[in-house]
């Protein structure tokens, strides 16, 4: 029988302050799974995925506290890994907050493939907020402020509708 290599790996420390949550996984049938974890007050949660346990990517969402929603997924690949990373947070807006202090909100970084817990996602020595990824003259911080796509050369004044949450 074809086996699926599926693992929920306890989160490892990604950066100062990040630590492991204790996720559980439950099969839902039809190659789908539910991820849940014991949430704690004053903690924010990110869910990451990997195809090889080497590089980790974020799902574009962030949760907070005890009463969070369940996370469910279905993957077309046999080798798929998920882990939950938590970050101490006492505020009320984990989407708009900037945990790593690089000038970009968490949800902006998640939406555009940057690391919300790393000030320099591509390790080029420049803070994520101070970069101009699409070289359109607007720094990422400006794109964040304007709600525009930092990876598409567009006029900084063009607003991008970003939906957060469910």
């Amino acid at each position, binding site marked *: *029988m*074809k086996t699926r290599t599926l693992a929920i790996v306890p989160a490892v420390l990604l950066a100062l302050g990040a630590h492991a949550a204790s996720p559980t996984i439950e*099969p*839902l*049938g*039809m*190659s*789908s799974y*539910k991820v*849940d974890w014991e949430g704690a007050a004053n903690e924010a949660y990110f869910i990451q*995925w990997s*195809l*090889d346990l*080497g*590089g980790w990517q974020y*799902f*574009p*969402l962030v949760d907070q506290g005890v*009463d969070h*929603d*369940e*996370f*469910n*997924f*279905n*993957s*077309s*690949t046999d*080798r*798929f890994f998920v882990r939950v990373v938590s970050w101490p947070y006492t505020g009320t807006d984990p989407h708009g907050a900037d945990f790593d202090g690089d000038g970009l909100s968490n949800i902006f970084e998640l939406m555009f*493939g940057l690391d919300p817990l790393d000030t320099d996602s591509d390790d080029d020595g420049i803070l994520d907020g101070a970069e101009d990824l699409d070289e359109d003259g607007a720094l990422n911080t400006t794109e964040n402020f304007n709600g525009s796509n930092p990876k598409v050369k567009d006029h900084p004044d063009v607003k991008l509708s970003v*939906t957060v949450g*469910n």
Partner: protein
Amino acid sequence: MKPLLVLLSLCCLAPCLLAQEIVQEDQPSTSPIAEVFIPGPITDGTPPQPPPAPPGKPDFKIVESRTGRMEVVEPPPMHGLPPVTGTVNVTLNRVEDPKLPPLPEPLPAAAPTDPAVLAAIEEFRRNYKGTELLFISATVYDRSRTYLRIYPNGVARKEIAAWSNIDFNHFSGFSTFRVTREDGSFTDHGMLMGLGNQTAESTERLRELLEKNGMEYSVPEMPELPDLAVAGPRYVIDEGGDVEDPASEILAYMHRLYATEGARMEAAYIERERVRKEREAYYRANPPKPKDVTINFWRTSKKEEDK
């Protein structure tokens, strides 16, 4: 013997005697060996039955989607080939809750006092035959001599080491052999074998490597062993091997097994090798490429009782 020693001996012996009495009926039979054979098939490279079709995919309604390119490295399709590498499209879809049907409820646990359950347990107990596990390390030299280390049930102090005139590559297509006795009782021996092959070239490479690093390579001293084709399966014990030692019996069983099943084992091995080489050639000519990946995810509210 001093009274204290007598007392200590009694204390130590009592549980052993008790245990011996309890397991008496499970003690191995001393009836003469009738047959040593392989109870199941020997793998000959025939592919296994294809896996059942994967369950259907839920009907997802995509709310938001994004696709990126990603370098991936996947394990090779078989040993000896390079990893499968390439760039794939990875699509991440936020989807609506597909409202999957609930999984069937697990069957209720049977009551341990249920007469049917008790009868089934008794039936199982009556027919149960444990498998003796053999941990074997086998190094085959030039496909004609094997240096063996056997640890019955993984016990290091019961180890036996021996030279055999059998190519133990032929022992790799099955995992269990059975020893039957004239009184009808039998024991299955399960093998966990680590197998290595040494040729004149690989030995030379090893010697060069060790000498380069200031170490000395000592050539294993191979005792005189008659040719398999002329004298049949033979072995010479190198270490361990008291007559009472179960490892000695195991060694004898394995050689007796080869005497009766060797031709079948060798034929299956040759066929496995043919299929393996064919597969390897195919994959080298048609290197597999990693497939694109689609991940669908959705959120659901916790049920009240789960909170």
